[in-house]
């Protein structure tokens, strides 16, 4: 018996598959068809044997590159469920983003962040540089400046520095090749957001009539692109020695089944639920940027912002440790 909701989800998956040329669509009645379709849309992923318990959930997890599938016996994985049950709930393209036991598609808890790895001072040419990996999202940021105005002198501000940003995604960073790495609407919007965020944080009054360039490049996109960029740019600005009011830490949050989720990955973003991107100055708890998509009831907004703030503070702890380790390393090398 197909509920209307499930039928809609299945149609969604089939439609998605039809958009990708050459992909085989399994027969309609096949259980787990939605998940298999979805998995086939993502190149290179292995689909486990049909009768494996929890196959639906495993397929879903395998669709996301690099995510570890939790062991079969783990509660919430569907390992204890017969495969039909697992597929029924999870394998439809609607995706069960939050299982009954509270696990997300990649095995994280609702408020858990992806693993953050960051390094500063990675490039020699730039004044400041940083590389960050948040789960599978890989971003790098490079800062030049403060330096004299390039191009039109007329744009110089007499009392502060001009912050010039550029956000760019590598053409190979997304599943489908991205034709325009920068200059398209989304990139221009991100560029503007970055500029506004950093204008709030950098002490620009110290450098009148000069320019600070922040360039961000996404090498692999797996959700939370803007947030990874902001975090990387913060580290790069610190590496360049440009004074800031406070760190700028960013994180995204979503809202599924009355639970706020922190740090969304690509699958969770693509599912279309409400999402909030928050850039916070952690010490003073000031919000530099807040952006919300989709529809969210006003009663839930506070919860979601709270979840995003907590995630930002967790990111702040990691970034702070990275900065301290880097400074320690550099001073040891200098022998001072």
């Amino acid at each position: 018996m197909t509920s209307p909701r499930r039928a809609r989800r299945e149609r969604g998956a089939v439609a998605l598959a039809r958009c990708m040329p050459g992909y085989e669509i399994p027969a309609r009645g096949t259980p787990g068809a939605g998940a298999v379709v979805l998995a086939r849309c993502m190149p290179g992923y292995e689909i486990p044997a049909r009768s494996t318990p929890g196959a639906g959930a495993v397929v879903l997890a395998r669709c996301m590159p690099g995510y570890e599938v939790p062991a079969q016996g783990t509660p919430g994985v569907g390992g204890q469920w017969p495969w039909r049950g697992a597929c029924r709930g999870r394998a439809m393209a609607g995706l069960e983003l939050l299982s009954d036991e509270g696990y997300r598609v990649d095995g994280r808890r609702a408020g858990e962040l992806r693993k953050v790895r960051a390094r500063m001072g990675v490039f020699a040419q730039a004044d400041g540089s940083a590389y960050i990996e948040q789960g599978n999202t890989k971003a790098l940021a490079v800062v030049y400046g403060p330096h004299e105005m390039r191009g039109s002198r007329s744009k110089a501000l007499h009392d502060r520095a001009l912050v010039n940003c550029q956000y760019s995604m590598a053409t190979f960073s997304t599943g489908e090749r991205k034709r325009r790495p920068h200059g398209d609407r989304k990139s221009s919007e991100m560029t503007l957001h970055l500029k506004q965020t950093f204008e709030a944080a950098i002490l620009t009054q110290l450098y009148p009539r000069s320019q600070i360039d922040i360039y961000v490049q996404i090498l692999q996109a797996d959700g939370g692109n803007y947030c990874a960029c902001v975090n990387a740019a913060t580290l790069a600005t610190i590496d360049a020695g440009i004074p800031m009011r406070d760190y700028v830490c960013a994180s995204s949050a979503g809202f599924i089944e009355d639970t706020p989720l922190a740090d969304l990955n690509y699958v969770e973003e693509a599912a279309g639920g409400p999402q909030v991107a928050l850039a916070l100055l952690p010490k003073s708890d000031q919000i530099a940027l807040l952006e919300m998509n989709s529809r969210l009831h006003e009663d839930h907004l506070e919860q979601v912002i709270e979840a995003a703030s907590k995630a930002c503070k967790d990111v702040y702890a990691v970034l702070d440790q990275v900065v301290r380790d880097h400074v320690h390393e550099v001073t040891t090398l200098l022998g001072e």
Partner: protein
Amino acid sequence: MHMNFKFCVYFRTVEPLEYYRRFLKENCRPDGRELGEFRTTTVNIGSITTADGSALVKLGNTTVICGIKAEFAEPPAESTNKGYIVPNVDLPPLCSSRFRPGPPGEEAQAASQFIADVIENSEIIMKEDLCIANGKLAWVLYCDFICLDYDGNILDACTFALLAALKNVQLPKVTINEETGLAEVDLKQTNPLNIRKHPVATSFAIFDDTILIVDPTAEEEDLATGTVTIVMDEEGKLCSVHKPGGSGLTAAKLQDCITRAVTRHKEVKKLIDKVINSIKPK
């Protein structure tokens, strides 16, 4: 003459050419290298999982990342049994302050054309291998190079990145269903590309019309009066000799370049084999 550290720094800024000449007289360079020595080369393969093949190459400070995406396309009308390989080199403003935001500059376009020529001349991949169904479907490999840190010798780094990334590419098996005419992609069966030749580029900078130095840094490229790039493959065949103007070069000097290119090829081949073997057991 008493040379303290500060004097050296000022001298280097004010008279860079004289500064360099003093080193070249002693047959070495400011960073301590010999005239024929390359910078430390490292390569990292397969780090970008969204790309079908990827490689990150570091030649000293010069860092280039290459990502390859494979898509479907119709074969060209004049040769229905061939696919496409489309290279594109991007020198974004983040790699160096000499590049401005905007459309690709001269250097990026020249580098893209150079890589396209290397692919064409060296026959690293036969385009016929990329064809799936004659006249109907073929692969197109988009090779995108992004320079992350510019410190000279982009061409060598890009060629090396191209070779490493192509070796990393896995293409799924595609069959055309006779009834529907649609392509069926079997993601479980992936094959690596058939790399026929291994071209390796070696670049030289010409100083004062006479001295040749290998693997110039950005500073050395700015001071040089000319550059030469030689691309060789493993059989000792020359795939490309690229000398875009600049000061003259005698035939004997060119022969020295070719000899150095042969040894460089061996070094690079050894490095690539080592890296490929280290990731093979999967």
